[in-house]
């Protein structure tokens, strides 16, 4: 059965994933919109940077974050300057890492959805004197709904499944950084296969259910394959 420590890890994981997903939507939506519309020559470079976590081993990201967020790293000096603690081994640190790591899973579906809307609906909205914000929320968001759904689900589930980065900057602290993938790893390494089975089973069931719902609910199939 699941022990208290396992339940704590599950709860923490969903907390990290929820907060990260909200942050990724807030940051990723304007970014995806800009990437879908711009003709700026920096576009390719920004696209490449956003997609980097897809190809980089999580250990690379984890290593850089550990060094950068440490007391003598750039981010570390910034956080000390504002007067907060350095980020490794903290909940905000894990959230920041998750946002960086899962960002392409949010930006790319949104970007594709925005691009496929085309000019016509936007021009129609403009002739009806809709302002840019109005156009975005009354025209773009409804049209891009499947993209948002895919982005939310992929962003959330990918954060739930994150392991390598947390392993490197987490420090395995209960209720703060010991997410469920860490806890499973701990169980397996300590030869506690029974506990590992329970937790791994939960995660498998969760992931399958979410994807099943996604494919059932959305009439237009989300382009999960397109990402990899």
């Amino acid at each position, binding site marked *: 059965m699941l022990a208290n420590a396992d339940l704590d890890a599950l709860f923490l994981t969903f907390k990290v994933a929820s907060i990260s997903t909200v942050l990724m939507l807030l940051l990723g939506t304007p970014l995806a919109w800009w990437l879908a519309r711009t003709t700026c020559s920096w576009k390719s470079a920004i696209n490449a940077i956003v997609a980097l976590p897809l190809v980089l081993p999580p250990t690379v990201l984890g290593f850089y974050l550990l060094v950068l967020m440490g007391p003598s790293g750039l981010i570390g000096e910034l956080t000390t300057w504002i007067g907060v603690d350095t980020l490794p081994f903290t909940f905000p640190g894990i959230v920041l890492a998750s946002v960086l790591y899962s960002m392409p899973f949010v930006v790319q579906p949104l970007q594709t959805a925005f691009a496929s809307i085309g000019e016509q609906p936007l021009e129609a909205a403009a002739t009806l004197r809709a302002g840019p914000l109005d156009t975005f929320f009354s025209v773009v968001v409804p049209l891009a709904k499947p993209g948002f759904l895919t982005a939310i689900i992929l962003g959330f589930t990918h954060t739930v499944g994150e392991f390598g980065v947390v392993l490197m900057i987490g420090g395995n*602290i209960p209720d703060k950084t010991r997410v469920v993938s860490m806890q499973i790893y701990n169980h397996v390494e*300590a030869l506690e296969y029974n506990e590992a089975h329970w937790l791994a089973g939960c995660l498998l069931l969760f992931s399958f259910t979410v994807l099943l719902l996604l494919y059932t609910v959305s009439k237009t199939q989300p382009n999960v394959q397109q990402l990899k």
Partner: protein
Amino acid sequence: MQTSRISRLAITLALLLFGQASWSATVLVAVAANFSKPMTEIAGEFEKATGHSAKLSFGSSGKFVSQLKSGGPFEVFLSADEKGPEKLEQAGLTVPTTRFVYALGKLVLWSTRIGYVDDQGKILETGNFKHLALANPKLAPYGIAAVDVLKKMKLFEKLQPLFVQGENIAQTYHFISTANAELGFVALSQVIEKGKITNGSGWIIPDNLYTPIRQTAVLMKKGAKNLGAAALIDYLKSKPALAIIKTYGYDLAK
């Protein structure tokens, strides 16, 4: 004349290509992370002395035990404790009577800050630090020893909320060396150079504060037929190897 020259050439080539393999073997070795520096040195000397070569993998002892139980390919296992090799022996995965203690591990409380850690460990009581790094006691013997020390000093409950755990002692070292954790428990071998702690400050913890770290080596059944594996086990007991082990601050088993 012509044919004999060709056949001589063929024999030479065959010797070069295949002959080598018969007396110089490659050994796959799983090494507890704390022993990575000395073992790299020992492996170099071992190659020079015997012609065999050792391929080293570093990690936590606990992880290696679970890998070896599931058919991991390692032929020699240098654990950081005694329990791991014993478990493997009970599971019938080792060559009987090859198990021996190759070193007694030394625990040190260490920080990159100069003058931060005093030579009595008073900093643990008085220090205003935010993170105390140690290896995960579930996986790494040096983590168990660190917990021993804190319990003996009656500081375990107080300091537990500040714990950050490395998956093995090498990761624990990185947490401290990047200054993300102000101080922590690592293996003396990681911070010692020519018999001294050269970087930052450290407290070499007295033996009576923790259960001895009896680092045990064993020959796995996978390596039973590999001449190089048996040679490595022997070499670990040789004078040059023992000398290297000592320079990294380990005690030798009596």
